[in-house]
């Protein structure tokens, strides 16, 4: 393979216009699989959540999970789609060992939801992304290739298959092609996936965690010269984070521009995003694509959602994240950027509940986006799993507001809360972390500090008030931090007649 000179991103965009499209798969968080009663817990021992149906034993038959249909309709409604009054599942036939039936039960020309849109904001400008279809299908198992250098099937000596994931309901959301984005294409793509994630999370139908694969994204990219027809698109898979969405589009624009500059034609192919290098590598060619021989699934009856049911779902849809964000931003008095960081941390609901439990907006944001976000990050867990509840955080902030804890002590109390030692008040008592508010005890400590540091005391008497800091430090040390610094300072200054 000869390497070609790649243009810079700006250079590429000066000659070509990108068209992007996104196909997103969302694993639904239903209790049971799509066609059987097996559990769907992530990370269970391989092949422990299986039965004759999801292993495709001879004679087994599927039965549709109503909760999966409901979740799909909710997603469709949230994406402003029309809900089909009647549609069918279809079989997508191809052989692959992690697909037990050697066909995937999916939807073909009769998707459950069609013709919707999502609005996203990038750099203060709104973009409308058309949604072509939202359909329901089943997930496959997972294949582990052992013995090869790459972990891919090529070169492996054996393959192990885990069917726990086989049959978990999956919703596929396909956008219409999005032209006219120019250099912002990567950012809009990322913003779309982020918005989609927030919408689905708000519906409570999936935990939409890209790193666990419950939200997976394929990015289609093509380039054309201005005024010319759209170019041939490539499909990039293995895009496993929001940042990767942006990087994948960007690198594909640069790669395709390099080829087009040379006069090489773009092959319609599947490519894999490389997390480490940030570029894409070829996968299987779509030019010799499998003929999936779709036909309506004869083992299942058509899906015909009762219009009254669809309307009741529509009426009970939660507030849309964009609307909610605008409302909360107003209530909390924060900027769009600050709101975005709360969204990215998955902290919006937690902050909201903390405020509802009595905290100030600033206090709630401080804990969730500071100390707790740091802990969640370190442990690689969701903020909601960090070990503190909104009620506990609100109680903690109240102790600070009431002067019973200072910032430093509050962090120690929080550590105890997260460690499961109880509510903040209980941890404070048990660990003996309360602020010393007994002025008698503090006065003694102040006098001791003054006696031990006559030089500094003299300076303060002479009016050099700034020197009081050193004495405050000494008092804090003897009280092991359990004093309120401002109170200590006031006591020092009044004792030395400098207040």
């Amino acid at each position, binding site marked *: 393979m000869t390497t070609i000179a790649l243009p810079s991103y700006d250079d590429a965009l000066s000659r070509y216009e990108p068209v992007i499209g996104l196909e997103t798969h969302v694993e639904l968080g239903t209790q049971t699989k799509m066609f059987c009663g097996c559990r769907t817990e992530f990370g269970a021992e391989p092949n422990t959540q299986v039965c004759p149906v999801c292993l495709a034993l001879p*004679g087994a038959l599927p039965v549709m999970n109503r909760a999966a249909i409901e979740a799909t309709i909710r997603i469709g409604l949230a994406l402003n789609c029309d809900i089909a009054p009647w549609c069918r599942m279809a079989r997508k036939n191809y052989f692959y060992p992690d697909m037990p039936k050697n066909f995937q039960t999916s939807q073909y020309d009769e998707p459950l939801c069609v013709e919707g849109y999502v609005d996203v904001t990038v750099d203060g400008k709104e973009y409308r992304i058309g949604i072509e279809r939202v359909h329901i299908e089943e997930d496959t198992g997972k294949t582990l290739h052992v013995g090869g250098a790459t972990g891919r099937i090529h070169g492996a*000596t054996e393959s192990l298959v885990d069917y726990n994931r086989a049959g978990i309901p999956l919703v596929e959301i396909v956008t219409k092609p999005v032209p006219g984005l120019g250099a912002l294409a990567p950012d809009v793509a990322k913003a779309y996936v982020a918005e989609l994630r927030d919408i689905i999370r708000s519906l409570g139908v999936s935990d939409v965690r890209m790193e666990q694969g419950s939200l997976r994204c394929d990015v289609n990219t093509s380039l054309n010269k201005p005024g010319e027809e759209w170019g041939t698109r490539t499909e990039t898979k293995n895009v496993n984070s929001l940042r990767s969405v942006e990087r994948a589009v960007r690198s594909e624009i640069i790669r395709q521009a390099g080829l087009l500059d040379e006069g090489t034609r773009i092959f319609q192919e599947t490519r894999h995003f490389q997390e480490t290098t940030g570029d894409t590598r070829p996968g299987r060619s779509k030019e010799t694509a499998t003929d999936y*021989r779709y*036909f309506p699934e004869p083992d299942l009856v058509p899906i015909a959602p009762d219009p009254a049911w669809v309307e009741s779902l529509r009426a009970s849809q939660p507030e849309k994240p964009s609307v909610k964000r605008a409302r909360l931003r107003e209530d909390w008095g924060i900027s769009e950027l600050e709101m975005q960081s709360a969204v990215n941390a998955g902290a919006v609901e937690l902050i909201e509940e903390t405020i509802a439990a009595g905290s100030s907006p600033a206090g709630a944001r401080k804990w969730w986006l500071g100390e707790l976000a740091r802990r969640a990050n370190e442990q690689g867990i969701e903020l909601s799993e960090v070990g503190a509840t909104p009620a506990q955080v609100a109680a903690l902030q109240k102790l600070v507001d009431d002067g019973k804890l200072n910032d430093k002590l509050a962090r120690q109390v929080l550590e105890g809360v997260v460690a499961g030692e109880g509510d903040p008040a209980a941890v404070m008592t048990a660990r003996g972390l309360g602020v010393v508010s007994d002025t008698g005890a503090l006065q003694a400590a102040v006098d001791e500090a003054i006696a031990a540091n006559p030089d500094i005391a003299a300076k303060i008497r002479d009016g050099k008030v700034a020197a009081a800091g050193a004495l405050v430090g000494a008092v804090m040390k003897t009280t092991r931090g359990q004093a309120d610094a401002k109170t200590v300072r006031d006591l020092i200054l009044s004792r030395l007649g400098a207040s």
Partner: protein
Amino acid sequence: MSDLTRKTAVELRALLDAKEVSAVEVATAHLDRIAAVDGQVHAFLHVDREGALAAAKRVDAGEITGPLAGVPIAVKDVVTTKGIPTTAASKILEGWKPPYDATIVERLKKAGMPILGKTNMDEFAMGSSTEYSAYGPTNNPWDLGRIPGGSGGGSAAALAAYEAPLAIGTDTGGSIRQPGAVTGTVGAKPTYGGTSRYGLIAFSSSLDTPGPCARTVEDTALLHAAIAGHDPRDSTSIAQPVPDVVAAARLGLRGDLTGVKLGIVKEFTGEGSEPGVLAAFKESLEALVKLGAEVVEVSCPNFQYALPAYYLIAPSECSSNLARFDGVRYGLRAGDDGDRSLEEVMSLTREAGFGPEVKRRIIIGTYALSSGYYDAYYGQAQKVRTLITRDFEAAFEKVDVLVSPTTPFVAFPFGSRTSDPYQMYLADLFTIPTNLYGGPAISVPCGLSEGLPVGFQIMAPTMADDRMYRVAGALESAIGTFTPPAL
């Protein structure tokens, strides 16, 4: 009691009720009969002596009662039986022991029916002669040199050879009725969705229907009632009460069909049918008229397209249903020498595991579904199916049931139709329209042609299975049953 195997299920129940025999004695008599004659007939692929006797003991202990408790049964090998080999007569499933029972098998067990074993069939129920069984054909007890019909030839032959009083079959294009016809036994295909498909190894999902086989109409109805009814594990199962087929059969057996309208299909001209078959059919029709029935000719113009439509729909669905047999999870695995790729192993497994008729249909179906051909083949066949359904609905506006010979010819000699698939497919000419429509149909013995049994088919509207049982009972009351020569 040496003649227990000659008894009907109803007679056996009477003996059991009177405590004249035990269920263990009944089961033993049939197991001994199998041991004695199955070497000639080869109706069984697997006999479960231990399981059958254990089930019989539970009945004798009074643990299970009911109208068929203690009556043994044979089950077609395409229906899963927990812990008992289930192969669909294919090498690709040789030795496979399912970890679960089909819903209808669960119901048989709950009814206290000892399962004698699994019966032979055309591989994956594809065929009309059992010559496509990977384990060798079944011989017709009427003439061991002739076919017992198919695909359910083993179940029908087991009845005709007195190896079992009752049997389970499955009918996709006639696989219960045509074997019934050529062995002189009764076989009913219930309304599609009237009996659960859960645990029936799928051939063509939209057509497959499990059903009862017996030597008398009343026995068939009793078995029908035991296995039918809604099953939440089969999405296509009908959530409605089962028509009272037992009462209908008994009503028919009283020999009165006053006011019942029988439709004969104008387009079933008899061309291609053997004269003896047509003669027996005509005589039976006259017998029914004597019982008070009226005969009306109806037109079903689209029936002529049934065979081609069937041979697109069934292979298409089979090409997808049989994709799961790949050697990865169960059954045969061929060529896995450590060097070959997964794809090669899958390919070699299917090459070694499937027989010629199964391969033929997978190839036809794969072609019919492929991009660019779908509309012309599968899509068109589905349209024909709708037209055939309309033909049935229009006919049932005028008549209560439709009647015809079950199959155009009596049992044919082995090898006489295997060289030309179309000649074999013609065996299902009269039975296939019902499968495409989804209604019920039954085959009842109606006479002999050159010493071989002829079947009379009665087709009814969907969920009106009781109607066909009434006419079937009446026909049996007029014509009687037929006994094959001793083996």
